[in-house]
């Protein structure tokens, strides 16, 4: 690696970390979370970057090299279908197989009475979460894994072997990707590790959203105990993937905690207590969390404001970013706030005007990271993302 490239990397890392500590760097860092956009830009189909993870990694590196971005994710088309196919996951729809070639991969919500976890299985889950996942959940969500007590099959055995090897290979590639981003373009790999809220795990992968909504009324205590049972495991997983240098944050991807999926009172009762404890524990160990507030989260700001200062980077999607800044800008770095529909349907001048306003209001004293509101898929226009980048460099120098 050239000395100049390493200097660029160190400069960008310092810029990114300084902003995340809610301080004022030399300029506003740019950290766009680009997913299927990378395929469009690099000339691949969405099927190609979803199924061939090497093309996904290459596309992410091409974007990092061509745009003046400080930090990117190694691969935001994260759900590599090579692995989901190896395991035979039923809840995952793959572009080019189940979906058109240029449609993003989808998670399938289970139908009524078809949830991967039955309504009467809370006690089994609570008693032994990992055992439940292996013995009950995995055989249901996998087309190949045999149920416990049933004869094993060749496909069952191959599912574990291929799934395990594929996961090892895939995660190893993220380390290689971080090194290549650093050496080829001086770009920082922006995240390390993963966190989900206990309630989201119940909604996304176990009971389904509709099933969990019924449970909140029919068996609320079980829902709360299940969240508590999941909590130490989710903390453990987050810590096991966290940046040992404690520079970049753990990614927290939230789905069902916002309006209109949960009312504020449901959020306070079911969603927040266990998630709050995990974030506090991570921060006590020196790890920040990228609080990816996808959707409208402003009605929950009063609870989020209870978190320790600097413990999160608050990413704004559909909430009013100026209200977020007034409410929690003193405590946390803020990122995002450039609407995806503007990036898809607006003009470069409109994008630049929006970025200027956000930088002047939210980023005035530092503690702001430029990004779109939500992860960018195939509808983001190249010229608009370039305008977002250029505007940040034009208006974002301190």
């Amino acid at each position, binding site marked *: 690696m050239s000395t100049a490239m390493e200097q660029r990397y160190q400069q960008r890392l310092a810029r990114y970390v300084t902003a995340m500590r809610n301080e004022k760097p030399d300029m506003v860092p740019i950290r766009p979370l680009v997913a299927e956009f990378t395929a469009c830009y690099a000339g691949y189909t969405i099927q190609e970057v979803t199924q061939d993870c090497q093309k996904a990694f290459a596309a992410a590196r091409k974007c990092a090299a061509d745009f003046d971005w400080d930090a990117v994710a190694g691969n935001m088309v*994260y*759900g*590599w279908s090579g*692995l*989901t196919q190896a*395991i035979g*996951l039923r809840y*995952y729809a793959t572009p080019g197989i189940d979906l058109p070639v240029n449609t993003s991969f989808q998670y399938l919500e289970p139908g009524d009475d078809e949830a991967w976890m039955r309504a009467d299985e809370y006690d*089994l889950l609570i*008693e*032994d*979460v*990992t*055992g*439940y*996942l*292996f*013995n009950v*959940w*995995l055989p249901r969500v996998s087309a190949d894994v045999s149920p*416990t007590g049933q004869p094993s099959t060749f496909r069952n055995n191959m599912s574990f072997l291929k*799934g*395990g090897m594929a*996961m090892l290979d895939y*995660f190893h590639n993220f380390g290689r990707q971080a090194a290549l981003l650093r050496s080829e373009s001086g770009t920082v790999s922006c995240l390390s590790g*993963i966190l*989900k809220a206990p309630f989201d*795990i119940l909604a996304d*992968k176990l009971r389904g959203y509709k099933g969990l909504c019924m449970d909140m009324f029919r068996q609320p205590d079980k829902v709360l105990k299940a969240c508590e049972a999941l909590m*130490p*495991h*989710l*903390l*453990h*997983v987050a810590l*096991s993937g966290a940046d040992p240098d404690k520079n970049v944050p753990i990614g927290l991807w939230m789905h069902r905690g916002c309006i209109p999926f949960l009312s504020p009172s449901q959020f306070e009762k079911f969603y927040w207590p266990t998630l709050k404890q995990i974030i506090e524990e991570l921060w006590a160990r020196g790890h920040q969390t990228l609080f990816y507030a996808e959707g409208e989260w402003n009605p929950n700001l009063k609870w989020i404001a209870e978190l320790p200062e600097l413990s999160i980077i608050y990413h704004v999607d559909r909430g009013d970013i100026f209200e977020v800044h007034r409410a929690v800008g003193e405590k946390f770095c803020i990122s995002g706030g450039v609407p995806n529909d503007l990036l898809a349907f607006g003009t470069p001048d409109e994008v630049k005007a929006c970025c200027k306003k956000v930088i002047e209001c939210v980023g005035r004293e530092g503690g702001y990271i430029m990004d779109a509101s939500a992860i960018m898929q195939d509808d983001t226009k190249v010229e608009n993302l370039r305008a977002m980048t250029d505007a940040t460099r034009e208006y974002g120098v301190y």
Partner: protein
Amino acid sequence: MNEHTQTKRPPGTCVTWEEKRPEFPKIEGDEQLVKRVWEDVDALGYTYIWQVLLSF
């Protein structure tokens, strides 16, 4: 008692050392080494199921 009630699996474990240890009548050498390596590799199994749940 079914399998769910027989074992408690703390975070990071699938088959705990306490569950595995009785399968060795005798350990001639360094038991702590055997324990550490068992737990390190066991944690990979834990990573597998939890990453399937969270990431895929």
